[in-house]
């Protein structure tokens, strides 16, 4: 039977294959042309939505930043006035300072903590225990930032919070974590450091496991101690993973919003207002889309600056 099927199908496909282009009278496409056509057809649905909801807003935000826009009413061209407003406004200045301060607290500490945790996890012998601990550290990261913030609001509470209870156990005075201009932002940073390490830990674990163990064996033969071993072998080989983790966590930290919204609303006295919260306030409470757009673009410039700086810094350490 197999030979019949072969000839059958060739007979059926053969004439149809030759006739079809003639009957519809479409231009004959070469293989390369048809591949190009299909390539574009298949990405078309994605590209339509991408163009409308990603590319169009890029253009719109530049336009919004140089006009005075109102949902109903006249839109006036104001030039660079919005940028000047943002730069002069004390709350905007404070929000920039706070965002940088927060980022400088969160990114280095949480990266170091994740790396330490990953080194500890990877040094475990059995792969099932490694998987268990990876899951244990990643688990708090799958729940929403809102849920995390609500939980920490209880933990930070001045009167009934667990944190102050622990302090009272060691005979320390209770701290008004979120109600004090000196401790509010560091408290939020501490919360971020302890609750958002999952992704970084998993990335570091994967990178550490991909380092050939023969390198460590050689180091052990040479008598290298724990710190020396990790400083000379692990860190240089970890550079790509480190760069990724630092870039992504910087991006996240510069944009922080949800904990501010739930825990402090920018207070007390603007001590926790961040760029994200400032933009939200301008847009929703003051209906001031111009300054919001201008601040958003300034944040973009700062973020690109940070990212380029990090790439430069790291490419000095290791050639890619």
């Amino acid at each position, binding site marked *: 039977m197999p030979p019949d099927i072969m000839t059958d199908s060739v007979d059926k496909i053969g004439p149809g294959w030759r006739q079809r282009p003639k009957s519809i009278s479409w231009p004959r496409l070469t293989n390369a042309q048809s591949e190009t056509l299909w390539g574009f057809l298949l990405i078309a649905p994605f590209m339509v939505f991408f163009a409308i909801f990603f590319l169009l807003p890029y253009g719109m935000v530049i336009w919004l930043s140089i006009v005075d826009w109102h949902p109903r009413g006249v839109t006036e061209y104001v030039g660079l006035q919005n940028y000047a407003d943002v730069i002069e406004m004390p709350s905007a200045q404070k929000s920039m300072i706070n965002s940088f301060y927060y980022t400088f607290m969160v990114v280095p500490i949480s990266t170091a903590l994740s790396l330490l945790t990953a080194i500890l996890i990877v040094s475990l012998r059995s792969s099932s225990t490694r998987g268990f601990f990876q899951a244990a550290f990643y688990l708090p990261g799958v729940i929403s930032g809102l849920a995390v913030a609500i*939980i920490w609001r209880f933990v930070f509470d001045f009167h009934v919070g667990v944190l102050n209870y622990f302090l009272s156990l060691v005979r320390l005075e209770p701290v008004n974590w979120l109600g004090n201009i000196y401790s509010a932002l560091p408290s939020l940073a501490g919360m971020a450091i302890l609750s958002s390490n999952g992704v970084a830990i998993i990335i570091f674990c994967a*990178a550490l496991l991909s380092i050939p163990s023969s390198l460590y064996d050689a180091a052990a033969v040479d008598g290298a101690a724990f710190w020396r071993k990790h400083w000379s072998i692990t860190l240089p080989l970890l550079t790509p993973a480190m760069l990724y983790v630092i870039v992504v966590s910087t991006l996240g930290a510069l944009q922080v919003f949800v904990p501010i*919204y739930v825990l402090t609303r920018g207070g007390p006295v603007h001590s926790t207002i961040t760029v994200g919260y400032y933009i939200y306030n301008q847009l929703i409470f003051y209906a001031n889309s111009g300054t919001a757009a201008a601040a958003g673009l300034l944040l973009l410039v700062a*973020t690109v600056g940070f990212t380029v700086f990090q790439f430069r810094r790291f490419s000095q350490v290791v050639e890619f």
Partner: protein
Amino acid sequence: MATKTSLRNNQPSSLFETLQLRLLPEGSASASRYLALLMILVLAGISLFPLYWALITSFKHPSEVATIPPSFVLTRPVLKNYIDLMTGSGVANSPVLKWFWNSVFTGAAFTLGVVLLASLAGYSFARKRFPGRDKLFWLIISTMLVPAWSTIIASYVLTLKLGMHDTYWALILPGLASPFALFLFRQFAVTLPDELFQAARIDGAHELQLWWLITLPLSRPVLATLAIFTFTYHWNDFLWPLLVLNKPQIYTMPVGVSIIMFQLKGTGPAYGIGMSAAILMSVLPIVAFLLMQRQMIQGITIGSLKG
């Protein structure tokens, strides 16, 4: 010495030794190995404590929520906080079940759309040759490095102009073309063997059949991972729904819960209800993660290492 022998034979001789083998880190000095295990347990404890604390608090009776000293074990679990949350006692106009449904429904529709668009486009970017392909791909990927705050104002104005505020459309359409999903799917589709596609093409399959009959069935694990990431992202998203939704009937779970949290006064009962809301919001992502743990962990590392 005993440990070394049993390692070689792969047969631990006692229960204690089994535990040592499974738990302790590698290394020579025994004290530092115990220290490492202790450190990892402490870190894991700190990481999981808030979740544990929220879980047991949510099942405490409202009168026991804010006691000093706090009780760290649950003696008699009650559902009072969950019932208070559902029936909206203390906060008017809080249809929690409707919010839950809004989140589930828009999340499902969003996930379906994201996976469909990303798999079509990802297949094309991975397996078709067309001019400008790689430049276009990296243009799309590079938008992931742009802070959301830079364009969210424009998206807000755009969806307002399109009349999408306070509708499900505002929750589904703007994020449909997801660069992350495209990246994940494309990175997977590149690894499929070319012979399969050639064989199918010789058998007369056209392009959509290559996508539907070959690419999709082979990428089931990555599709499942992608679906869970996408649904979890949408389920947890707070900022965008907060901006575009103003009517309580259309709130998603996080927006509704944040409104409840602001209207509740008094610490004890408010924290009880807050913790039950936090747990209710976390159940789906946690269950999804536990089911798909291995694939999700692989999915996270694709982005950083193979890129």
